[in-house]
Each structure stands twice: as C-alpha cells, then as structure tokens.
C-alpha cells in the first residue's frame, strides 16, 4: 500500500495528495476497505424519504438542523452603545459569506430607510453638485466584484498579552466576504466633474449618527463603488440598505453604510471615527492614524476553537486568507507551532481583495499539535509573525479578559490553535 507523502511535522500531507492519489488511496490510509464501510452501516430508508416533503418557502431559510449557525451578538437588547454581530467562520465554508451571517457593526441601530425617499448627493469641490435616487443609480452601468469587508478592530483580542479563550467567531468574526454590485464612484464623479483642489471625499451615512469618514480621492477614483446589491440581492439593512460605499480592501468603517452624501474637500474631516476610534496607539504613546488598509492575514477555520476533533485520522485543514493589497500568493500551514511548514492549496479563482480559501490534507496521529497559518500577497507582503507584530505594535500591559473588548486595531498576525489529545481546540500563542 502506497503511503501519502508527509511534507511537514505532525502529519501535514502534500496539498495535492488526493488530486494525484484518488479515493482509493484515501480509503487506504484510514484503515478501512470501501466495501467494509458500506456493509457495516445497514442503511435504512428513513421516514422523511417516504412521504411528501415540506412546502417551498417564498424566501428560504436554512434547515432547522442548522439553527446553531448564527451570528453572536454583543448587545442583543440594543442598549445605547454599539451592536456587533460576528460571522461564524468555523461553521461556514467556501469564500462567500451568506448575507444574513455577514458581520454587522451598528453604532446606533440600522435605520429603517424608505428606498424611494433615499437620496445620494455629491457636492463640494465639484463642477456640478448632483443628487441621485436609487432608481436613477439602478440605470447606470454596474460592476460586480468579490470583496471582503473587515472591521479595523477585527482580531484585536490578539493584542492581549495572554491568549484569550474564545471561539474563532469571537476572535475573527468581524470580517466577511460578498459579491457586491453597484456603480463605480468614478462614473458618478465623471458626471459631477472634479475641482482640481479636491483631495478627499467625505462620505456620510443616513444613520442617526450621520457616520462620516474621509477617503483620499485616489481611492475614490480607483475601485470605490456605490454598492446596491450584496450576493445578488439588495444590501441587507445591517450592511447599509439601500446603498453603501464599498472601498475594496480598506477598513470596514470607511465603507460608509446608508450612504447619502459625498462631499469633495481639500482636507480630511477628522471625524470622530477617523480621529479617535480607528487609530492605533503604539508603544511609546504615539498613534497611527489613517491606517486605511486591511493588511494580509489568514486564519485556520477548520479546525478552530469552537470545533472538536472526533479522533485520530484524516482531516482537511482549511482556512481563509485575504489582503487589502491584492491577491493572495501563498499560504503556508504548520502543525508544530511554526517550526516546519507545508504549502496549502488555494481554491481558484484567487481574486484580489477577496477571501481565498486554502486547504491542506492532514493525518492527525492523536497527539498534541499546534496549528498555524501564514499568508503572503502578490505584492510580496507577508503576514507578520506574532513576535514581529508585537515588536512593532506592542501588546496589552495586562491580559485582556473581556471577549468583547477592542484592545487594539489592525492586528494581522497569525492565529495558533492547540489541539490536545482529546481533540479539543484552544487558542494559544506560538
């Protein structure tokens, strides 16, 4: 019996082991013969298969058996503070986040906007201020693209000096990926004209805070979109219905939801969220501002904290990688806390500024292991090691104990998951 090629410590297999070997090989190393597994089951013709099934719904909902696949809510009663809904990455697969599970951060609740009354104004340093309705925007040439949106505070718990125990949903749940469809902002700015003095665009929402952020004009003219659709349907209320600014690869909060006003100006507005919230205090007391980019990052979703391995044998390690700089070029996976590495397979198509699913086959021998991934993007940017990131950005003076805290922003170091011999997965630093 030909064995599978182990390419890194603790059972990481070549990423193409199964593409070259086929199912018989897979069966071979699990220790069963295919005929045995079938015979042992005694397959029944279950009752649900012998009667007419359920009615078709107008708007579908998942199987009742998937009730646990939901966002976790930080403020379910809507107290007068921000609400967060986090994506359950450990229960999803592929690269598209279902709309109802896309992460949401709502600083003052989702406004109940009548789309017929909604207006988008573009003014300031333009030749002609213009106002658009949803109906008029729907007649413009549209584009569709995949793009992740990530909160600047996602993964911030990893700035804690000790690893906080929480599921991957608590740690990395504030990033999601959709196909967005809308009108390129450059198309609309072509129509308003741009005064040469314009350097920034202040984007503002129709929510109760009239949330506003300043965007450099170069980004506005590059790939910024006034998005109207999310995964084929109108944008969900939590994600900006009826329209949002989409800035592919840039800090989530800048992708202003409920977009109602774009003002071209000669200086940034220094709004609350750019002057205060989405900044990063550095060791020594200075702070980064205008971080803009969500830098190259990856994390393993299967297995991850919140899941449990059901015994030694074959598993596929899988996770998500993305970069605000462009396409993912490479993902490496380690099963021995970063000492030896194997290259993961990347699911095609690999798209810029979008989730890339990576996978690698793994034979778990049943002993303790520490899993970790690191990604590189096409610009040559590497996801930093924890030591590199902490040297540059610091960590908290004391361990963080509140899983809803945001001790820092823009963490893009690696995540390490320790699997113990019982199959339990814990968050560790390695």
């Amino acid at each position, binding site marked *: 019996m030909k064995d599978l090629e182990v390419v890194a410590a603790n059972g990481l297999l070549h990423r193409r082991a199964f593409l070259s070997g086929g199912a018989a090989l897979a069966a071979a190393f699990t220790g069963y013969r295919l005929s045995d597994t079938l015979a042992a089951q005694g397959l029944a013709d279950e009752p649900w298969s012998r009667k007419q099934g359920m009615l078709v719904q107008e708007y579908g909902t998942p199987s009742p058996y998937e009730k646990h696949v939901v966002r976790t809510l930080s403020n379910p009663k809507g107290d007068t503070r921000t609400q967060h809904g986090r994506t359950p990455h450990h229960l999803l697969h592929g690269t598209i986040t279902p709309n109802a599970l896309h992460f949401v951060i709502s600083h003052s609740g989702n406004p109940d906007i009548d789309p017929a009354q909604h207006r988008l104004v573009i003014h300031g340093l333009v030749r002609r201020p213009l106002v658009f309705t949803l109906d008029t925007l729907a007649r413009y040439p549209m584009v569709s693209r995949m793009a992740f949106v990530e909160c600047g505070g996602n993964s911030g718990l990893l700035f804690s000096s000790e690893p906080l125990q929480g599921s991957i949903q608590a740690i990395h749940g504030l990033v999601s990926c959709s196909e967005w469809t809308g009108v390129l902002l450059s198309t609309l700015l072509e129509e308003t004209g741009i005064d040469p003095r314009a350097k920034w665009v202040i984007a503002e929402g129709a929510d109760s805070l009239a949330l506003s952020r300043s965007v450099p004009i*170069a980004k506005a003219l590059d790939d910024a979109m006034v998005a109207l659709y999310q995964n084929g349907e109108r944008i969900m209320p939590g994600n900006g219905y009826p329209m949002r600014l989409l800035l592919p690869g840039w800090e989530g909060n800048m992708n202003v939801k409920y977009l109602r006003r774009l003002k071209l100006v000669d200086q940034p*507005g220094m709004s609350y969220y750019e002057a205060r919230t989405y900044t990063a205090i550095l060791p020594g007391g*200075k702070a980064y501002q205008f971080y803009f980019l969500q830098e190259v990052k990856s994390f393993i979703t299967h297995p991850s904290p919140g899941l449990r391995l059901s015994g030694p044998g074959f598993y596929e390690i899988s996770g998500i990688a993305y970069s605000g700089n462009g396409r993912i070029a490479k993902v490496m996976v380690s099963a021995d806390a970063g000492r030896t590495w194997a290259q993961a397979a990347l699911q095609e198509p690999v798209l810029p500024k979008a989730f890339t699913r990576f996978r690698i086959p793994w034979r778990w021998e049943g002993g303790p292991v520490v899993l970790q991934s690191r990604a590189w993007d096409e610009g040559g940017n590497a996801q930093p090691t924890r030591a590199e990131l902490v040297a540059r950005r610091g960590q908290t003076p004391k361990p963080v104990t509140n899983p809803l805290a945001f001790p820092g922003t823009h963490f893009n170091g690696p995540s390490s998951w320790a699997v113990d011999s019982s199959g339990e997965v814990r968050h560790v630093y390695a």
Partner: protein
Amino acid sequence: MSTRETVQRRDDARVRRCLVALVVLAAGSVMLAQGQVGTPAAPNLGKPVSEAEIAAWDISILPDGTGLPPGSGTPEQGAKIFVAKCALCHGPEAKGGVAAALIGGRPLTDGIDTPKTIANFWPYATTLFDFTRRAMPWQAPRTLTDDEVYALTAYILSLNKIIGPADAMNAQTLPKVRMPNRDGFIPRFPERIP
C-alpha cells in the same frame, strides 16, 4: 504620475468631452431641454442641485474651521445644557455613566489599550463640535442649536482645562484651540495621504 496629475488629466478629458457635448447641444439635442450638460457617454441621470438646497444636510466641519456655523457659547452656558441633555448618559460633570467619561484620561504611554479621551487623544477641537452636532444627544440627534453645540463644546474643553472657564467658542475661536495630543499621530501609509 501623481494623484493630482491623474485627477487633472481626468478633468481635462472631461472638459474636452463637455465641449463636445456643447456642440451636440447646440445642434438641438433633447438633453438641452433637460438642462443636463454632462459627458455624452454617461447616463447623465444625476439631477443638478444647488449648495443652498444641500445646506440642511451639509454638516461637515473641517479642522481649519470650514463649515462652522454662526453662533457662540460659553462653558457656563454649556454646563446648564449638559445637566439637562447629556448627564443622563455621560454622568454628572462628564465623569462617565452608561456612556464614556468626557473628562480626564491616562497618559497614552500606559499601554496600547489606554482609553482614548478628548484630553489625551483627540487632535482637533473641531471634531468635538462636529460629532456633538451630528450625533448627540443619542436619543435625539441633530436637535441641538448651533449655540448649544458651541456651549457644550466650550464646557467640555473647559472641564479638561484646554480652554479657560470664560472662553467663548465660535467659528473664529474653535479652530484655534490647540489640543494637547495634536502632534501625537503618524500616518500608517504616508504615501496614501493626499
């Protein structure tokens, strides 16, 4: 090519297309009747709107004071408004309640997770006016008069000893207030700042 040049080139191209459009219009295009003079290749469905019509929405305040409305307010006036409209959430004398304290703050050298406050962090006083006017009070945003927003801004700045107890805030004085952490920032990607 710099961003400026890119924008300029796009603009030049647009001007050329506008000229072409004007020729078309002179030939009697129906677009003339709609009063639209945009790029012939574009849908031109945006409706022209005057800055006067946008005024009610235009609440952007820039750090140099651009956009600040007429009006004025003192810390003393602000203290009374604060008790009536803000203290419920921000606590008496802005010491904090269900919403953040608006006074004090630890040195930022205490750690990367030091709470960011007006006194220890905010680089511009105009942000305080802008955010208060657009977002506060939480239950009834955009109901404060401009005088009230100036007074509340003056009160908070005075509580933090950034201005004196008798200093009035208005469109002239507010942009001149120098916040303690004004120079505490580094752009993460300087090449992306216009």
